[in-house]
């Protein structure tokens, strides 16, 4: 192996080995590289300067960085983790929240049914959901979209979700769309890190700390049900719902996906979802499809229900149906 040998030039003098004709160049190149390296360091320092303002609550550090996936957490891990999250919520919002982890109830599979003849597009469900699930208020993230469509049509792309006139508008009907908790969910299939999965009662959940924010699930969902936190969620402290669950309504952070979970923090404890309780028209029905006496079972037996975009094969657990209109209103909705 040949080692590089420094060439000694005896013809020159002066600096003990340096070739005299190279001396000015060396100085120049030394200066040049010094300035370049200095600028490089300055740029690096400038690029890293936002780190000085970093909120340590918002980064994964130390133990958090090595946190396991939700499914691999032991009971002790969960207890410690939930206590940490509660402490963080207290620091950030000054709210004593309880972060729980209600598990799917045995023998329960949740199904939603929505009566399109009753819905009058008032959007109480939309905002009850925002309040219950601690969605960001600024910008506001809404899980439920209500489409206003002309009666006699069913073209979703002609539906207007931004309506603000008095409802129901004559000649129109309203179609609320939220997560359909599909039995064959495309959003779960596309997740590259398995941060989202379907649980035994049919609810598809997201581990917000495992999500990398790639938004594949948002692209895969045919129902426009997933939302992305583009900014740090802003929630006024007095509007925080302190009854939280790890997989549903605990505060999220920037850069993660979120979605409707049928209010699992309520429904897995036997309660009704917030959107249903706020609905003034009784258009929303929720329950256990495995119980033949439940309201949703009755509806699926009695009414001609349909699912949205049946042809895409997602097998939603969210059913729509129309009903007789006669007693709904005398103010000429159908005119």
């Amino acid at each position, binding site marked *: 192996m040949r080692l590089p040998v420094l060439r000694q030039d005896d013809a020159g003098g002066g600096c003990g080995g340096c070739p005299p004709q190279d001396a000015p*160049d060396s100085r120049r190149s030394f200066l*040049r590289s010094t*300035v*370049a390296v200095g*600028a490089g360091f*300055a*740029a690096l*320092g*400038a690029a890293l*300067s936002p780190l000085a303002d970093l909120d340590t609550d918002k980064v994964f550090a130390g133990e958090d960085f090595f946190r396991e996936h939700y499914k691999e957490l032991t009971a002790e891990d969960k207890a410690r983790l939930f206590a940490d999250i509660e402490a963080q919520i207290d620091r950030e919002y000054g709210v004593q929240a309880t972060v729980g982890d209600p598990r799917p109830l045995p023998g329960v599979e949740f199904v939603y049914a929505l009566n399109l003849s009753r819905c*009058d597009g*008032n*959007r*109480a469900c*939309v*905002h*009850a959901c*925002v*309040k219950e699930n601690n969605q960001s*208020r*600024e*910008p*506001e993230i809404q899980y439920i*979209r*209500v489409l206003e469509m002309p009666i006699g049509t069913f073209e979703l792309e*002609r539906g*207007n*979700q*931004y*309506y*603000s006139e*008095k*409802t129901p508008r004559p000649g129109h009907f309203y179609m609320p769309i939220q997560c359909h908790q599909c039995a064959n969910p495309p959003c779960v299939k596309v997740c590259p890190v398995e941060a989202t999965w379907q649980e035994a009662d049919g609810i598809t959940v997201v581990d917000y700390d495992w999500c990398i924010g790639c938004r594949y699930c948002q692209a895969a969902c045919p129902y426009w049900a997933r939302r992305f936190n583009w*900014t740090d969620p802003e929630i*006024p402290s007095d509007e925080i719902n302190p009854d939280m669950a790890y997989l549903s309504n605990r505060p999220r952070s920037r850069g993660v996906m979120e979605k409707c979970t049928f209010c699992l923090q309520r429904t897995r404890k*036997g*309660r*009704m979802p*917030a959107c249903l*309780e*706020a609905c*003034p*028209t*009784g258009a929303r*029905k*929720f329950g*256990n499809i495995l*119980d033949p*006496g*439940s*309201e949703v079972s*009755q*509806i699926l037996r*009695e009414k001609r229900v349909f699912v949205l975009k049946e042809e895409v094969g997602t097998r939603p657990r969210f059913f729509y149906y129309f*009903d*007789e209109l006669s*007693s*709904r209103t*005398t*103010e000429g909705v159908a005119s």
Partner: protein
Amino acid sequence: MRNRVLENVIGWGISAVLLILAALFLWAPIQVSNPVPEPVDVDRARLGARPIRVAMHDPPSIEVATFDMNCMECHALFESGKMMPGGLQRHNDIEMGHGINTNCFNCHDVERRDRLVLEGGETVGFNQVPQLCGKCHGPTWRDWQQGIHGKTVGSWRGGDERQQRYTCTDCHDPHTPAFKRGTPLPGPNTIRMTPGEGPHHDDGVHRPLAQWINQIAEHGHDDDAPP
């Protein structure tokens, strides 16, 4: 020699660019603003789980000159007409809008004004309104009994003590049963849509997609075009 000049220019150039970038990063003279919509104002009273109106309890009572009076306290003393020839002289806060059902005694009992009357003259209390309404609204009553019509709050589990079924008059005014039209709560923000013309339409109508919707309605989709 030319190469050396070029090298110098490139070297200093890179340094200068890096320095300028460093300065830009540090002092940030160009503020990149990310527009965030304002939080919306929502009437929180509309978001809770409670009936949208207060139904008459049983036995019924109404406020007369700040006293809570039972119906029969007046109706036992005063004779009142069995028909309504010239409209209501009392109870004129009642707004009638129940289609062809305009006769008081289709629902109220003639003799006992604190009772409701079913077919055949049988009376029920004001807490058994569904039976009364079922006289005409048979399919709706059947649906209500099965939990299909109406509203159940508290719990989805049958037999749960928190479960509460609303009756007809928890939602419908019996004299004007149809729901009134109302202003919807705010929809999704439109801050990133067509600045200047999108969010607030000049006629107050919030329909930023209107022009495309109308275009589709007029010309149909591209794939509708004949081949």
